[in-house]
């Protein structure tokens, strides 16, 4: 997977992804002496991209509309079954940065929970709970959107 795709998934828009990709390649070049040839180069490079994207997300302002988690599980399941890809992506982008990062790392980057915890500087247990809450927040957004559409 390319650095650009990774940064796009992590940051959620083309302009930031381009900016981040350029910065990642510069950093990789400047830190080339830290690369160990025994490791895959792609993994090393995407590691830099992942860290940099998380730094960028940390520096972003918190989302203005903080999401309230939803607990109406049955309604959500019905709604979620009808979701299209673009709508889900848009909803993920509306999440607060921390929750968005958690979901992107877990479901779009297929990172294990212990790795996510390490990247975000939290315990593994805290990451598990945060992932559950992030999914609830996303479900809340999607449910509200569908309800708005219905009206």
């Amino acid at each position: 997977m390319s650095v650009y795709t990774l940064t796009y998934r992590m940051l959620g828009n083309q302009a930031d992804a381009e900016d981040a990709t350029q910065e990642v390649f510069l950093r990789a070049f400047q830190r080339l002496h830290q690369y160990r040839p025994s490791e895959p180069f792609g993994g090393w490079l995407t590691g830099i991209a992942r860290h940099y994207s998380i730094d960028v997300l940390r520096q972003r302002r918190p989302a203005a509309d903080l999401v309230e988690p939803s607990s109406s599980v049955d309604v959500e399941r019905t709604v979620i079954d009808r979701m299209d890809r673009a709508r889900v992506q848009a909803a993920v982008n509306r999440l607060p940065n921390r929750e968005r990062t958690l979901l992107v790392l877990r479901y779009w980057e297929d990172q294990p929970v212990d790795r996510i915890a390490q990247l975000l500087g939290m315990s593994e247990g805290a990451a598990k709970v945060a992932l559950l809450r992030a999914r609830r927040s996303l479900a809340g957004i999607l449910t509200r959107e569908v309800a708005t559409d219905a009206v």
Partner: protein
Amino acid sequence: MQCEEARRRLRSGEDVEAEAHLAECATCFAVLEEGDPLAGVLRAARPEVRAVPATIAAGVLRRWRTPRVSWRLGLAAAAGLLVVATVLAASTVWLAPATVAKPLGVASNGLDIVTTIVNGILAVPRVLFADRPAVIAGYAVLVIIVCGLWVRLYQSIAFQRRRVTR
């Protein structure tokens, strides 16, 4: 708390006690995640691999060529150099006033200027260690090393690159 009870509570909403169980239980995390349709929806909604814009390579090169001077590091380096120069000048004036009797302004040519500067830099060790030329030579080498390190520091500052504002 038993796993079944924790999962039941977590499925129906937030529960601090059940979340504490979840934090410690890998099985509950896996079961809840796999049983959550949103996890599958999220995976299916993963943005596809995107074509890399043609502007990326040019952008990297542009950043590479744009020096970034960190003002904090530059200021610290300049302040350090100023302190060293001041101490050197003050000790030269104090210990070897004859060396600075001829100001640089009246130096007749380039060689004269260089000689005056070198004499000024070496004035202190020449006064203090007049009978030990090895110490004076060591001092000269030290000055050269310090100057070299400062040049290297400046280069490392300039080596950093600036984020190009879009």
